[in-house]
């Protein structure tokens, strides 16, 4: 079996502008397996993500859920099967174009410490060669959208921000190129419970306003049930359950029960 590998940078740019089917799913996994070394990270995953929905992948640490995200934006290529983004296999996308087409938010935001908030948020438009003035307007608009006052925050450095503010900047940065699809890798995992609830509320508001498609990875079952239009349970590299939040509460299986037990055990939020 071929190994799950990082894509080789390609010099040629494929023109894929013509591939914009409207009815087909934004993301589609077809019998995808991912193997690194001797270890099967993902086994035979198949699912679709339709436009506008928020698929939350729930799972323990090491269950393989982050690998799913990396397969979507081409940080990894599948060992077997096909990952389609807007109908085109990730192997056929130019990796650079694919990634600029997808917003990515990770835990601790991964902000560039040597750039200001404005520099971070405006980076992708800058890479795309947008005019300075347009970038400036866009940054101000995005910061307002994530409830950070532009005049107060745009010149600050990431180290001068709280964890919650950093994460907001991370979301603004992911939205900068107006991508149709956003990936969230446990973005709120390192935040205190109060800030986390605030940002979850904001996530729902943004989704209502922008209507973006999102794949959201978390190990917090509450977060999953709150944010998801569909919940996928990833366990030992397999997608065990894929259903709506209300159906998930009635789903069968040891791993589902283990997660649902957290709901009863934790009364803090």
């Amino acid at each position: 079996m071929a190994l799950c590998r990082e894509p080789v940078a390609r010099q040629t740019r494929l023109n894929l502008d013509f591939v914009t089917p409207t009815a087909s799913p934004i993301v589609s996994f077809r019998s995808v397996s991912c193997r690194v070394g001797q270890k099967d990270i993902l086994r035979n995953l198949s699912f679709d993500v339709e436009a506008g929905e928020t698929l939350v992948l729930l799972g323990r640490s090491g269950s393989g859920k982050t690998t799913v995200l990396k397969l979507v934006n081409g940080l990894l290529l599948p060992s077997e099967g096909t990952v389609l983004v807007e109908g085109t296999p990730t192997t056929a996308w130019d990796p650079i174009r694919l990634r600029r087409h997808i917003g990515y938010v990770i835990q601790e935001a991964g902000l560039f410490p040597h750039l200001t908030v404005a520099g971070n948020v405006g980076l992708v438009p800058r890479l795309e060669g947008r005019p300075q003035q347009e970038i400036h307007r866009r940054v101000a608009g995005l910061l307002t959208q994530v409830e950070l006052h532009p005049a107060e925050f745009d010149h600050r450095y990431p180290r001068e921000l709280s964890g919650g503010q950093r994460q907001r900047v991370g979301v603004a940065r992911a939205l900068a190129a107006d991508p149709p699809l956003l990936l969230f890798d446990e973005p709120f995992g390192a935040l205190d419970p109060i800030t986390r609830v605030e940002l979850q509320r904001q996530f729902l508001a943004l989704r209502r306003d922008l209507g973006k498609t999102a794949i959201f990875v978390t190990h917090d079952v509450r977060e999953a049930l709150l944010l998801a239009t569909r919940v996928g349970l990833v366990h030992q590299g397999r997608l065990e359950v894929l259903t709506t939040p209300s159906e998930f509460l009635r789903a069968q299986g040891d791993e589902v029960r283990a997660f649902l037990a957290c709901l009863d055990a934790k009364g803090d939020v």
Partner: protein
Amino acid sequence: MQPGLMSELLELTLEHVGLVSVAMAIATATAIPAGILLTRREALRRWVLGFANIMQTVPSLALFGFLIPLPFIGGIGKHTAIVALVLYALLPILQNTLAGILGVDRAVRESAIAMGMTGRQLLWLVELPLAARTILAGVRVATVITIGTATIAAAIGGGGLGVFIFRGLASVDTTQILAGAAPAALIALAADKGLSWVEQKFWPG
């Protein structure tokens, strides 16, 4: 003080600074790109660092001596001295370039790649700015070492402040030794302070 010592002092100081400047320019222009390349070629890293390490351990007087019989780069004079000085200056710059770039936070690097940066953009917009301070510290250390080591250049006809030191040693003349050693130490101190200032000024933290 003997007559003519002042003018000779000035001349040899300039020669010394010239030796160091040329050697550092070559070493920096070699070691930084080599360091960047080594961050991308793990297999090569061990070999190149090993070579630079060995160069560092050869006693400096011996290294100057070893170079003399070599064709093209050897012989008596300035160019041999510069080759030896470059070999000494490589390691600190190489090591700090590697440490600076490899030390960039994984999450930062990953989000740069995930947002669609090309390899070149990752290097110029993220890795080099974040590693700059560490790299400059390597250049500073190498400069200070080179200023001291350059006094030995006189042993193979390279000139510089070492001329005073070797002449003073031969004639058991402390004034002559000091006339070489003291300015060399002062230049080293000034270079250290100057480059520290640049580090602080442009990369505070």
